[in-house]
């Protein structure tokens, strides 16, 4: 059971990474980040069977931070959209020196 859980977790994480790296739409990249977080959560829950409840407590923390991050992240994306009429990451290069 542990092996299957961790395999699923790894698969979800990889999908999330690929999504972050390849997709252009900021909303989808954002969803992929959430996917990576939840993949990690799954590993925590699965491994708590071996190492005790600490992992489960961490999951609660991660979900809380993820909710806060979602709020801030979505707010930033909306602000960018208002400014640029686009959420395409290719258009967002203000950090270029």
């Amino acid at each position, binding site marked *: 059971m542990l092996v299957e859980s961790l395999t699923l977790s790894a698969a979800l994480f990889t999908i999330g990474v690929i999504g972050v790296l390849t997709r*252009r739409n900021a909303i989808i990249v954002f969803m992929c980040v959430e996917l990576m977080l939840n993949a990690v959560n799954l590993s925590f829950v699965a491994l708590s069977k071996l190492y005790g409840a600490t992992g489960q407590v961490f999951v609660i923390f991660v979900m809380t931070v993820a909710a806060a991050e979602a709020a801030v992240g979505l707010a930033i994306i909306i602000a960018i959209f208002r400014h640029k009429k686009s959420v395409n*990451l290719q258009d*967002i290069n203000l950090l*270029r020196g």
Partner: protein
Amino acid sequence: MLLQETVHPLAETAARFVWWLPTLPLIGFVINGLLSLQAATKLGPADPSADADHAHAGHGAHAHDAHDAHAHDAHAHDAHDAHPPRHRYAAITSIIGPGVLIASFVLALAMFFAMRGVEADAPFVSRLFSWMPVGDFKLDAALQLDALSMVMVLVITGIGSLIHVFSVGYMQDDPGYPRYFAYLNLFVFFMLLLVLGANYVVTFVGWEGVGLCSYLLIGFWFSEQANADAGKKAFVVNRIGDFGFMVAMFLLFAHLGTLDYTAIAANAGTLEPGGAVVTAICLFLFIGCTGKSAQIPLFTWLPDAMAGPTPVSALIHAATMVTAGVFLIARSSVLFSLAPVASLTVALVGGLTAIFAASIGLKQWDIKKVLAYSTVSQLGYMFIGVGVGAYTAGVFHLVTHAFFKALLFLGSGSVIFAMHRAYHATHNHGDDAQDMRNMGGLKAMMPVTWTLLWIATLAIAGVPPFSGFFSKDEILSAAYSRAHESTLADASLLGMSGSTVLYLVWILGLASALITAIYMTRMMLYTFHGPNRTDEKSRPHLAEAPWVMTGPLVVLGVLSLFGGWLNLPEVITHMVPLGPAETLEHWLEPVVGEATARVSGGAAHVAVSTEQMLIAGAIVIAIAGIAIAKARLKPEALLTKDASEPSRGFERILERKWYVDEIYDALVVRPIHALSRSVLWKGVDVGLIDTLGANGSAAVTRFAGWIGSQLQTGRVGTYAWLLVIGAVVVLRAFTAGN
């Protein structure tokens, strides 16, 4: 080593205060320098340098000497009667400047009498502190008082005091009054360090220091380009000579392991007599001397050095600094007596310089230029003396020359002072106050200066019983007797036997004695005799200088007259009982006696009859020179520049100083300029350093920065990729061991 050292008999006397000798002028320098700075930063309404009248200071070819006169109110026609504004600190400077020197002189006199009182052959060395202890090499800041440095100290402080007092009058209206005395005091400090140094390095510090002061004082009126250039020329030419001095010190250290005079005198025997080492050391030392003492080929700076104030010319460029080379050879007499080839070179260069400079002096019109070439010529005489191994004769002529040449310069300063006052009073800025063709007949206006300058002229011409006669005769008879028989005569130089070289030097000396008598008489005739050639308006303003100036002249006149008594030759005292013979010879015996004996090989003198013939010949030559000049320059032949025809042929060559400056310019200065411009500037500096060094490293840096800047795209995607790649690499690194 320390246990063996006994207490020197002088240690209990005034000599233990020897370090006060240079310290006193140094204190004077500090005080006068601070006063000068203070006055420069805060200009007061009464300050002459704030006076607008000075805007017109600096016209005419020799306006540098005019500053004293220019301080007058330009609108007052009887300006020489009015009291010109003096420097704010003139009073205190007039006391401190000459005061420290007189104090130093009194102290030196006390030491002199202490030295006469005790029997001490070994020099008294006063160690102040350990200066450079480097491994085996130990160098002390130490002063050495012996017979030779005592003579030099008395000349420097004695003549120096007189010249300082004279300067109080001569420079009275100069806006840079305290600065002048600060430099002059500093010069005396370094000069005393030079002669009192107990090793070559302390001497070298003084040697460089007097060069610096010479530069500062030649360019004292630096606002005029010519004066600043003259100072620079003196500095650069001296630097060439200093290179020789330094190489000589390196060689001495490499072969003897010490630079102390006492240790070198003790260890000189380990050097092979006449060997390459000691010859090289002496020749390099002599290169240093040619620079400082203005000998061929480095003499060109001294005539230009006349751009400085006239008392400076008297003190630095006649009486003291330029004789440092003669002092150095006398100080190194142990080494020179071991190197006959080097000694012959010294004598030959001295002889050639003596006649060369004297020939130029024949056709100069600037009164100070005549004296400048005369100084170069007389320095040549001194080098003949020390070159032929008659070290006492060289030092003797150094002393008498200091007397009569200081007198000549100060006397000419007094004349120039009077001329400037007259020209200034009548606003005549077209005529040159130093040109002898504008003088004439000053005998009536300046009787004191006239009398004293004739004494100096007869002294330098070698007329008995004036001082120059004895010293010059001693040098010439030494050259003759050494040519007859000595270690020098057995050596050879440039394929000529030493004997031939010395006879040649002797003839050169005789010939320049004749020329000296001619050009000095010419100078006197042009300046003081015949009709006055100053313009009608200025003539009534010509007058004798104040007593603060003529006073020192009188003292120098007495010294020039009786200076010969320092070292009367035996052959004369046998005939005429004038006084004790060869006083200076006995006095200097502990320092140069051994070296003199080694050169002469014991045969000190030629036969008495020969010596009498030589003396008679010298007198005849001196009188003949004066007679020739008098015969050729009848009063009606003395003309102003406008009235006289331009000189032609050989006279023109002499007037243009054998074109030496032009030749040096073409052979040395221009090639160096061209080399610096084409190779060093355009090639090395622009090509190598700028292109490869400065701009090259900048280009490399800019390229590296460009590569780095390309990583920063500003796209989040790129950064995410780099993040992931980095994470994978880190993970891989952490798990690699498993």
